[in-house]
């Protein structure tokens, strides 16, 4: 008996040893991958200043001159998202925080441009403590610029490791994106825009001498994988905060976790309603509920939609979408005749279309990804059917891949988006594009690339306004009083404690023919959701 017992236990032991040996072998691999990821970032970046990861020694030494040049370039072309916005971010901070902080906040615009030319050398300063970084930051500025952060002596007192994930010269930031899985082919773009902004912040000198060390993870649009990554980032990598996670399946479950551990998540995607319940989560894009409200109102008023059928990915966000659409369409004497859930392995689009035809539906609204939506549209074409008002859908459709996939069958489809549409040539959008495409030239600009960019911008500005004393609580307090942050991409963003529903604006775009191609074109907006909740 004992013999067997120990034998079995030994099996356990052996496997354990094997497992750790296997993982041990990958320690080198880990290092290799890290370097590789930095190199990748470097090659993705148009300027070799891509060594924005603080650990990237190789990149950093080559960076300074060109990074500085690139940065001043961007700063010049983006007044909306750049200097002026940090100025507005600074004002609430000045109101709620101490005078010392507000002085450093007010100094930000100057520091920013100064850091552009000196930040590289500041970051390179070998193993710099706070005392060394500060002179680095203050020796370079143009004459007349106020010296940030006070005297060097004070720097060592307030700088350094002020909170988890913060050192004298780096701040660890967690970011989770969708790089694989069912929507991985276009999901990766969602996080590239936010990452581009964070990298641009680094290339322009970082945050008051500290570089952002961005740790990127993949959730494959699967909340279980996303939470594994999030816990790993918090519990093992000891990150300071999360920034601009544009995956609803991770942002939703992350919200209670962030509250529990008091970790700020600046710039969540905001698609799911649970995110608005978090005290430490700050969504920037609009909710699917707002999309449904505005789509229903528009379709009822402009298209005379009366009999609607809805197909949705059956998560709480999808169900909320159906409910919200129904609420508003009823106000216009319309009705949701039937709705049907869909999954990736079994979308059920065939019978949905068949039923829509027999029920004499005039509008089909969807809460789907481009893949299932394409299947729906193809199915309708195969059955030689198209409802009077064609299709409409949540922001999940607002990707260029959607018209590419659907072709002529999708013509007339209306999609919601939370920011200016890609064909609206506003200065803010041009500035956004300049930054993002500098690092990721082939990006498919969608609702969430813009959301990620805005989230990262708010994050960077709020951090800068904190001066050297960077703590989670102070970051939260600062963002909690953010007022009228100019995004340059449509709605301005304001938060107040307990009220994190910052974006209630919807733009609508329609798939239209343009030559032999099909593209989303602006048709309406900004529409501000008057039915939205006030939290």
């Amino acid at each position, binding site marked *: 008996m004992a013999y067997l017992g120990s034998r079995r236990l030994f099996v356990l032991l052996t496997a354990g040893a094997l497992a750790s040996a296997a993982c041990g072998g990958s320690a080198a691999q880990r290092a290799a991958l890290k370097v590789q990821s930095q190199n990748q970032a470097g090659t993705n970046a148009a300027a070799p200043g891509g060594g924005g990861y603080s650990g990237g020694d190789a990149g950093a030494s080559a960076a300074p001159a060109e990074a500085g040049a690139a940065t001043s370039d961007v700063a010049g072309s983006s007044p909306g998202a750049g200097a002026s916005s940090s100025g507005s971010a600074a004002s609430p901070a000045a109101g709620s925080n101490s005078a010392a902080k507000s002085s450093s906040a007010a100094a930000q615009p100057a520091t920013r441009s100064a850091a552009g030319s000196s930040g590289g050398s500041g970051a390179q300063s070998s193993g710099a403590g706070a005392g060394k970084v500060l002179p680095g930051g203050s020796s370079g500025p143009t004459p007349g610029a106020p010296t940030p952060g006070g005297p060097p002596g004070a720097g060592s007192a307030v700088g350094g490791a002020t909170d988890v994930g913060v050192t004298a010269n780096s701040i660890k930031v967690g970011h989770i994106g969708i790089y694989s899985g069912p929507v991985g082919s276009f999901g990766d773009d969602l996080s590239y825009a936010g990452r581009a902004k964070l990298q641009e912040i680094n290339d322009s000198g970082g945050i008051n001498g500290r570089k952002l060390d961005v740790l990127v993870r993949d959730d494959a649009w699967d909340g279980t994988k996303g939470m594994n990554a999030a816990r790993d980032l918090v519990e093992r990598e000891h990150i300071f905060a999360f920034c601009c996670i544009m995956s609803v399946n991770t942002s939703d479950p992350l919200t209670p976790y962030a509250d529990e551990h008091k970790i700020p998540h600046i710039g969540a995607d905001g698609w799911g309603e649970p995110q608005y319940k978090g005290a430490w989560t700050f969504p920037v894009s609009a909710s699917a509920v707002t999309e449904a409200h505005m789509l229903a109102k528009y379709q009822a008023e402009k298209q005379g939609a009366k009999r609607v059928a809805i197909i949705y990915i059956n998560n709480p966000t999808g169900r909320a979408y159906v409910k919200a659409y129904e609420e508003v369409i009823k106000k216009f004497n319309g009705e949701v005749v039937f709705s049907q859930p869909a999954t990736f392995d079994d979308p059920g689009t065939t019978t949905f279309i068949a039923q829509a035809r027999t029920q004499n539906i005039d509008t089909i609204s969807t809460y789907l990804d481009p893949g299932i939506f394409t299947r729906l549209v193809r199915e309708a074409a*195969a059955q030689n059917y198209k409802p009077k008002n064609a299709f409409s859908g949540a922001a999940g459709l607002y990707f260029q891949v959607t018209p590419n996939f659907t072709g002529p069958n999708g013509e007339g489809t209306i999609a919601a988006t939370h920011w200016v549409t890609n064909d609206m040539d506003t200065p803010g959008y041009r500035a956004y594009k300049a930054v993002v495409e500098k690092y990721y030239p082939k990006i498919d600009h969608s609702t969430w690339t813009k959301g990620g960019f805005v989230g990262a911008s708010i994050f960077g500005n709020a951090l800068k306004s904190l001066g050297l004393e960077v703590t989670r609580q102070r970051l939260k307090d600062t963002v909690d009083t953010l007022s009228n942050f100019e995004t340059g991409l449509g709605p301005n963003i304001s938060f107040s404690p307990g009220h994190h529903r910052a974006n209630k604006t919807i733009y609508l775009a329609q798939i239209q023919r343009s030559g032999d191609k099909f593209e989303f074109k602006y048709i309406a907006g900004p529409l501000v959701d008057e039915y939205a909740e006030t939290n």
Partner: protein
Amino acid sequence: MTKLIQTLIIGLEYGCVYSLIAMGMVLVYRTTGVLNIAHGGIGVLAGFIAWDLNTLRGWPYFPAIGAGILVAVAAGLLFERFIVRRLAAPALATVATLALFLLLQGLVFVVPWWGNTWGQVFNSPFANKQVAIPGADYSVSWDQLILFGNVLLFFAGLYFILRRTRVGLAMRAVSDDPTAARLMGIRQKLVAPVVWGLAFGLSGLTTMLLAPILLLDNTSLTAFTLKALTVTFVGGLISLPLTVLGAITLSMLEVSTQLYLPNVKGLSDAWPFLILIVVLVARFARGTKALEDTAVAPA
């Protein structure tokens, strides 16, 4: 009227898909005793290779799908030669097919230029061509007609092979009584490759027929495979005609429930289980003893 025609056509469409998959699984099971879980996975591989050749490398459509199906057949032969033959017990080979399934489904995400994606558009040359049905506001697409035609062809062909050819005779002999078959000079080693190649090729063909109608993706064939597996139960994993009957019954029930009883939530998804219970009760009432695997160990 339109609703009835819709129900019949959609029911037939999915019935054909279930049939194609279930026939492939029954074919392998009754001759080798292996439950081929990889059936869906092979189709994914073949489909993505054909899509790769056609869309990324500019091959014409038919050579591309031909190549995809050939790859599937070759995979079947290799799998039989290097894996199934090395494993003494069919149950082990069943597990090997499970491993192969995981590997193949994961492969789609591993090959970098396949775009790390759930689905791809893979149109046939008959895309957007329909035949209107007289008297009803409805039409059938060419792709659907081709699917129906292929199922009929394949069913007839398989029936012919099993009944009228030497290979078919050998296959039936092996499945009925392997020991006797061996004594009669029939060699499992000759029958098995034919079966595996045929089954994997069939899976590839299923994808090619399905992709133009739906999308080319790495999950829906798996979902169909699981449902087809429950259908094979109707034929006791042995009878091909009963399997096809089960497949069409299941899909007709599913579709008519969805179209005629849309408010009875969940009923259409409960059908595989309900059919299973009906079959079980029927067998029980007929006094058949507990349903047990009768398949045999290969030599």
